[in-house]
């Protein structure tokens, strides 16, 4: 995101998060309150190197060496991109569309309970309208950021999200205690739709990139995700709550429109299987043989640095091909596989550093 400055920081909380507020603007407003007390040029000097919107992405300390999981940064970047989707016009449209429905739900709740309309019904309507709006906004925010992540990073984003999801309850109902996060199962389902989009076709994973058995393992992981999303238990929980049911009906409708909007916005950056899989076997061969997958090096003069998307996807496919053996028959960690995982993380990180450095070097001398 060349128009923004992003700082990465570790946090103890096991979560990825982003400050969507522009910290630069925040400080600017705060400090300019004192403009009468200090010389103006001193204030300008403070913001000299702080001249772009500034955001902080936090990632869990526990996962700091788990490089593959860090493609969830793309979800957080998705928040910064999807932010502009939530304008006043869309909010008003949503409120107008649901107000009658929410009102009638609340009225019916009160008449059922007491046999007559309650004096408190109006207050409850306001309260439930707010709940519906938060559920809609938070649901859409998270799902759109996931979709943007998948558009930018492809299958790696889906695998990373699954790794976070399996550590939690798949069907958590969105409420105040979980900051109205949509259920993981629903998020995976929406991401899968993008992956399975008829114009994408990432899966079944093509033959010839990995040995046959490995291709089957990777396709197996994909099938497992598919199976998780075929279970509708998350939907049932949402349907059981009449307010959430209304809010998520709107989420479903808005996703279709928003996805088209972001596909248009990000069209030059969207990862396509035809491009991603074209040179993947070379990178896979490298990481399988303990070499960083940083570049296509067919010969000394025929070489090209890989993109971060290619590197992360290579590492994910490599990991999935042996990850099932992480526990031995007694249920203990398999030391060999743990060592392999450590090497893979280091090689992947090195590959990203090398590819980035090489591109920077080329750009510098191309000027």
């Amino acid at each position, binding site marked *: 995101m060349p128009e923004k400055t992003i700082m990465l920081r570790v946090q103890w909380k096991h979560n990825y998060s982003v400050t969507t507020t522009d910290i630069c603007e925040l400080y600017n407003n705060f400090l300019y309150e004192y403009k009468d007390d200090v010389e103006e040029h001193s204030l300008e000097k403070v913001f000299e190197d702080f001249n772009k919107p500034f955001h902080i992405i936090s990632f869990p300390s526990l996962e700091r060496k788990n490089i593959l999981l860090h493609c969830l940064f793309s979800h957080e970047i998705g928040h910064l991109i999807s932010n502009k989707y939530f304008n006043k016009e869309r909010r008003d449209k949503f409120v107008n569309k649901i107000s009658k429905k929410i009102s009638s739900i609340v009225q019916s709740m009160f008449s059922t309970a007491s046999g007559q309309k309650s004096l408190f019904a109006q207050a409850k309507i306001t309260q439930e309208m707010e709940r519906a709006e938060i559920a809609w906004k938070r649901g859409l925010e998270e799902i759109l950021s996931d979709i943007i992540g998948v558009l930018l990073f492809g299958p790696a984003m889906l695998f990373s999200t699954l790794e976070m999801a399996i550590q939690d309850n798949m069907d958590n109902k969105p409420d105040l205690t979980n900051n109205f996060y949509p259920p993981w199962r629903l998020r995976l389902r929406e991401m899968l739709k993008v992956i399975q989009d008829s114009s994408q076709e990432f899966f079944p994973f093509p033959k010839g990139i990995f040995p046959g058995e490995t291709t089957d393992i990777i396709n197996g992981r994909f099938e497992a995700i598919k199976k998780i999303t075929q279970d509708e238990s998350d939907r049932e929980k949402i349907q059981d709550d009449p307010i959430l049911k209304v809010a998520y009906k709107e989420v479903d409708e808005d996703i279709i429109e928003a996805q088209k909007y972001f596909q248009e916005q990000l069209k030059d950056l969207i990862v396509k299987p035809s491009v991603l899989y074209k040179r993947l076997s070379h990178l896979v*061969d*490298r990481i399988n*043989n*303990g*070499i*960083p997958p*940083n*570049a296509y*090096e067919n*010969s*000394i*003069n025929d*070489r090209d*640095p890989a993109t971060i998307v290619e590197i992360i996807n290579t590492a994910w496919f490599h990991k999935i091909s042996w990850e099932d053996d992480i526990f031995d028959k007694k249920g203990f960690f398999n030391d060999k596989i743990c060592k392999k995982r450590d*090497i893979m993380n*280091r*090689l992947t*990180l*090195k590959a990203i550093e*090398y*590819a980035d*450095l*090489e591109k920077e*070097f080329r750009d510098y001398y191309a000027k």
Partner: protein
Amino acid sequence: MAALAESQIKEYMERGAIKERLIVTPLIDTSESFDAASINVRLGSEFIIMKKQSFPILDIADKDILPSRIEKYQEKIRINYGEQFVLHPNQLIIGSTLEYISLPKRLMCYVIGKSSWGRMGLIIATATKVDPGFKGCITLEIINEGEVPIVLYPGIPIAQLVFHEVIGEAEYDGNYSYATGPQFPEFSRKYEKWKFWYKK
């Protein structure tokens, strides 16, 4: 034992099968990479620096205390590309090559300093042999033997690799495989094998 000339080095680097290929990556600027019988390698961005501590000695026979002392004595730092590291006279730091090397089973190499740096008093490697089959960034022991501080920049060409074919096949299986930066020494692993010599 003859050293490989540039053309032979390139032939090894262009072999089809990855296991038989010599890999030195990234080759950021090929015009600067090859000499008549060597490949130039650059200085990496991670370093282990030595801190002056209150403990008196580093004794490799103290297997219980040594690892914690080494950790206190040495600290890992990273210098960004474009930034400098000032190496003072008689100062030792552990660095590594920027490049990741993968040697096939028929090839070994020696790491040798560049004469231009040598003339400034910079020694870049004291343990210079790299075994066949080694994979990783090569650790460098960098010492300023000159009279004045020397400024180092990550990414500058600092050493060269001279290759030799080995008779038969061999493969490195040591503790420093797949290193992506400089490595701490691990003497405690050798304790059982060496304890006869400690006589403690």
